[in-house]
């Protein structure tokens, strides 16, 4: 794992993965969207609103997964001071925040026709909203210090503290009475018909490869920002000498 701490080595692998991830994203969306929107059947109880399921669940899954990735990378950054781990965490946060926002928005648009309300302060909805706020706090805290390293450390600690929310989100539908339906996976398998699982898995795949593609692009941007900082610092160091020479 430690060999991935080297930015050059990490980016060599990431750049090799990028065209595959980007291509797969396009293919999965092109195949998944027509099935989700057209050919998959309407639900016998929920009618056509079930089509929101193919957006809501992948967004929720990615919101939680990206947060878990941020938490693990924050731990790696705090323990081993791996700069790449910090960059992965920082570059992931805006994407994870978008996924969580989309999960909440799609959930609200599904909730109104099915539950009769856009929002209820129940455990699953509230814990997901808290995760969204932690995402925002993580991004704000990371940029709040003049010394970027202090910001990175503070944000990493916040991400680790906030990870306590992940099992709360996962088990909220079992621990408390909630409007939200329970998980579709159990020891007995899936509680959803195969005709609905196909578009669901295609869209989950598309969201996953989309995240990987955008993450790699954002990492390139983060590394460029670091190079710009270094170039500016050496510019400042050179300038007085250059002025004296003139």
């Amino acid at each position: 794992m430690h060999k991935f701490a080297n930015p050059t080595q990490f980016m060599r692998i990431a750049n090799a993965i990028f065209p595959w991830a980007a291509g797969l994203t396009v293919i999965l969306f092109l195949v998944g969207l027509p099935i989700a929107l057209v050919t998959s059947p309407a639900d016998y109880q929920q009618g056509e609103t079930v089509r929101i399921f193919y957006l809501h669940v992948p967004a929720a899954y990615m919101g939680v997964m990206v947060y878990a990735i941020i938490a693990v990378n924050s731990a790696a950054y705090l323990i081993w001071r791996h700069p790449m781990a910090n960059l992965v965490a920082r570059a992931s946060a805006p994407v994870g925040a978008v996924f969580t926002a989309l999960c909440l928005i799609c959930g609200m648009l599904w909730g109104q026709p099915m539950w009769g309300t856009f929002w209820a302060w129940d455990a699953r909805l509230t814990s997901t909203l808290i995760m969204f706020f932690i995402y925002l706090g993580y991004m704000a805290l990371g940029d709040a210090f003049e010394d970027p390293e202090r910001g990175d450390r503070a944000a990493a600690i916040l991400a680790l503290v906030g990870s306590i929310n992940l099992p709360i989100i996962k088990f909220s539908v079992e621990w408390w009475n909630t409007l939200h339906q329970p998980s579709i996976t159990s020891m007995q398998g899936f509680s959803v018909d195969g005709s609905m699982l196909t578009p669901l898995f295609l869209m989950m795949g598309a969201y996953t490869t989309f995240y990987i593609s955008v993450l790699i692009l954002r990492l390139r941007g983060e590394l460029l920002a670091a190079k710009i900082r270094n170039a500016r610092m050496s510019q400042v160091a050179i300038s007085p000498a250059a002025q004296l020479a003139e």
Partner: protein
Amino acid sequence: MVDAFLQYLDMGGYAAFVWPAYGLSAAGLIGILVLTLRTLKARQKEFDALKALRRGDSERN
């Protein structure tokens, strides 16, 4: 044909919920992608300009 298409767009009476969910999801995903690409492009431009400046400095010295 047109009726069937309009019926499809109606989404069984839930068009006001299904289409905004798809529209906003597309906007969110495309938005973060465009923002990422724009930032990347701007940083690349800034880095290239700094590199050119440094090259100019070293040539002058």
